[in-house]
């Protein structure tokens, strides 16, 4: 094998110069990925390995876990200790809540939403998955596809994560055997036909030994694909955001009331999707008034255009009454407006979902109230089986419901737009967020 072939598929970190180019960071992209897993599947080891091999662990952190490992009588440094932050988690050796980790390579900055994998923490997995570009799903090579693999995949698909990296881990324990890997890939492909996620990548790894995580394994020459870090660094994520349908939910109105800006009226918000430019004809929802974009700016700097997910301030040519919760959209490309909405929901509340129950609702920058009109079915998230016979939805359950809102929402299907297609429900007595909801076409 030539040098070139060996380097192909190696992450850029290997070529990282010892001195740091202080301007190179201006071209780094941000990528979010989620991991889910339980005690023994090597998830924490994998994250520890990514952080360690990408040189993202500080010496004092390393010393700290080295000492803890020793104190516990463990023979090797337990990289899993890096990711368990809460006292209860360290004591019990489990991950309870979503933990966020950060590392970067010269190409990208990564945010890891590290979540527990057990079914009783489905709500935490959903939280971590809600903003992710990619989900890492771990399979133990000795066990193959198990219930948890299917559950994590279904959640990733439900939450619209565009990419999946299926890592077949613990290859060292099956003698790096190609047949084992092939069998698992075939089985997963068959299962994945039922998922919405189109981009699925398979990688045989050993998180413990570092094979194909950051460095290419010399024990699996039969594997011609890339390492996990190379995939994370290079997978195309720019198209994960909808740049077609302009949706600009107004967060607040900026009125300086100063002499210099006497008549200034700017609409502050973050593009949920699409592109906005001065001169664009826009419709204001819900009033339906039309106007033209006078300026798109931030901090007084005029922009030729702005695209999701930028936060900007927009001025219009006409003086229209616009406030928080309103939305600017393009003429000829408007979202659906309705009070009757169907959604897939993941329930997070301690009390089960109440049929005809009333809840507070948050959707983009809009607040409303909603009543649950119908529970269509509960989804078995291990099998995708629909339970229609008198379904009740409790904590960590996923189901499909129909609601009616006090005021129309302006929305798109979740599959088309993660920001305008999602909402949360809030218990009005406790103020706690109790449901994550994804709108169905």
């Amino acid at each position, binding site marked *: 094998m030539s040098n070139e072939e060996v380097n192909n598929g190696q992450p850029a970190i290997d070529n990282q110069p010892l001195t740091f180019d202080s301007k190179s960071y201006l071209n780094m992209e941000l990528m979010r990925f989620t991991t889910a897993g339980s005690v023994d599947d090597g998830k924490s080891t994998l994250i520890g390995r990514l952080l360690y091999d990408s040189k993202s662990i500080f010496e004092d952190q390393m010393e700290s876990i080295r000492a803890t490992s020793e104190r516990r009588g463990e023979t090797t440094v337990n990289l899993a200790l890096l990711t368990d932050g809460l006292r209860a988690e360290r004591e019990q050796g489990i991950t309870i809540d979503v933990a966020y980790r950060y590392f970067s390579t010269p190409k990208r900055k990564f945010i890891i939403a590290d979540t527990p994998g057990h079914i009783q923490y489905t709500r935490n997995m*959903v939280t971590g998955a809600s903003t992710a570009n990619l989900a890492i799903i771990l399979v133990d090579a000795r066990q193959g596809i198990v219930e948890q693999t299917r559950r994590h995949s279904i959640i990733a698909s439900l939450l619209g994560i565009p990419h999946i990296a299926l890592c077949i881990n613990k290859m060292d324990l099956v003698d790096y055997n190609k047949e084992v890997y092939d069998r698992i890939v075939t089985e997963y492909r068959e299962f994945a036909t039922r998922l919405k996620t189109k981009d699925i990548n398979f990688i045989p790894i050993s998180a413990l030994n570092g094979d194909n995580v950051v460095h290419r394994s010399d024990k699996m020459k039969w594997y011609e694909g890339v390492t996990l870090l190379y995939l994370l660094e290079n997978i195309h994520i*720019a198209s994960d955001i909808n740049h077609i349908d302009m949706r600009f939910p107004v967060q607040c109105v900026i009125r300086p009331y100063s002499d210099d800006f006497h008549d200034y009226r700017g609409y502050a918000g973050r593009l949920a999707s699409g592109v906005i430019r001065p001169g664009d004809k826009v419709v204001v929802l819900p009033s339906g008034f039309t106007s033209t974009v006078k300026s798109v700016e931030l901090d007084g700097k005029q922009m030729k255009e702005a695209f999701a997910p930028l936060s900007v301030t927009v001025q219009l040519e006409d003086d229209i009454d616009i406030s928080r919760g309103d939305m600017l959209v393009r003429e000829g490309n408007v979202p659906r407006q309705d009070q009757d909405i169907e959604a897939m929901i993941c329930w997070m509340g301690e009390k089960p979902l109440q049929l005809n129950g009333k809840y507070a609702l948050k959707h983009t920058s809009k607040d409303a109230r909603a009543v649950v009109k119908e529970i269509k079915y509960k989804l078995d998230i291990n099998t995708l089986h629909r339970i229609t016979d008198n379904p009740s939805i409790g904590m960590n359950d996923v189901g499909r419901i129909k609601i009616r809102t006090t005021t129309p929402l302006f929305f798109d299907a979740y599959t088309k737009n993660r920001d305008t297609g999602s909402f949360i429900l809030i218990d009005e007595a406790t103020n706690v*967020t109790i449901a994550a909801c994804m709108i169905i076409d």
Partner: protein
Amino acid sequence: MAYTLNHLKTLEAESIFILREVAAQFENPAILFSGGKDSILVTYLAKKAFFPAPIPFPLVHIDTGHNFIETLTYRDSLVEKLGAKLIVGSVQETIDGGRVAEEKGFNASRIRLQTTTLLETIEQYKFDACIGGARRDEEKARAKERFFSHRDEFGQWDPKNQRPELWNLFNGRMHHGENFRIFPISNWTELDVWQYLAMEGIELPTLYFSHKRKVFERDGVWLAETPHIPMKPNEKAEERVVRFRTIGDITSTGASFSEAATLDDIIQEVAVTRTTERGGRADDKRSETSMEDRKKEGYF
């Protein structure tokens, strides 16, 4: 045109979104301003978020009375430049009022006393949301923190029972007497902060850059010579070229020897420090005791 953003612009957009949500969802928010780079960053992002209107939050400085003079100079000129409102909560007044007792001895510090002054200030001005510059990469427990962090009527954080934060939907609803801590730069790392400050050309307190200063060593930490720290007979101040990586109360902020005179130098230093630290790790065979020694040198 390719619609791609670099990571700093993505983080900026997220933080500005959060700050605007705070303005929209709360009645009386404030920025906790320490004079350090993170709270300076938050303040600049707030300026961007609401321009040309002034920042709709006052800056609250909990003043231990043991300041670097450079911090106060910077604070006052920033407030004037941005036309922001400044509220100072004075630890000295809390002490004079007999609500906390000053620590005694050589290592006396007012760090712990700050909490009382902070809670008093929140109560006095009835702030319902306090915006801080804490980041998730700073510390393990912080990695589990939310952007909108709910506090009960006693100001307590319940890490095992936090509200889920989904998509970009932030739930700031609360009962009377409760409040929120808001962390708009949760997703930034130390390096991100430096890189952004450099990219934007933001002016910082001179303490961050290398300068000559009289310092003395105590328990492995190099402290500035100041009337606020009584020196022991065996301690001797000497002039060294130093800078400060973090800025806080003068009695507990350690200096590091550094020639970094510009933001680019600092970025270089932060990045290269990592590489050299990492580089020696493979053949690193330290024992438990050497870690303790290291900690004494000021690692934590």
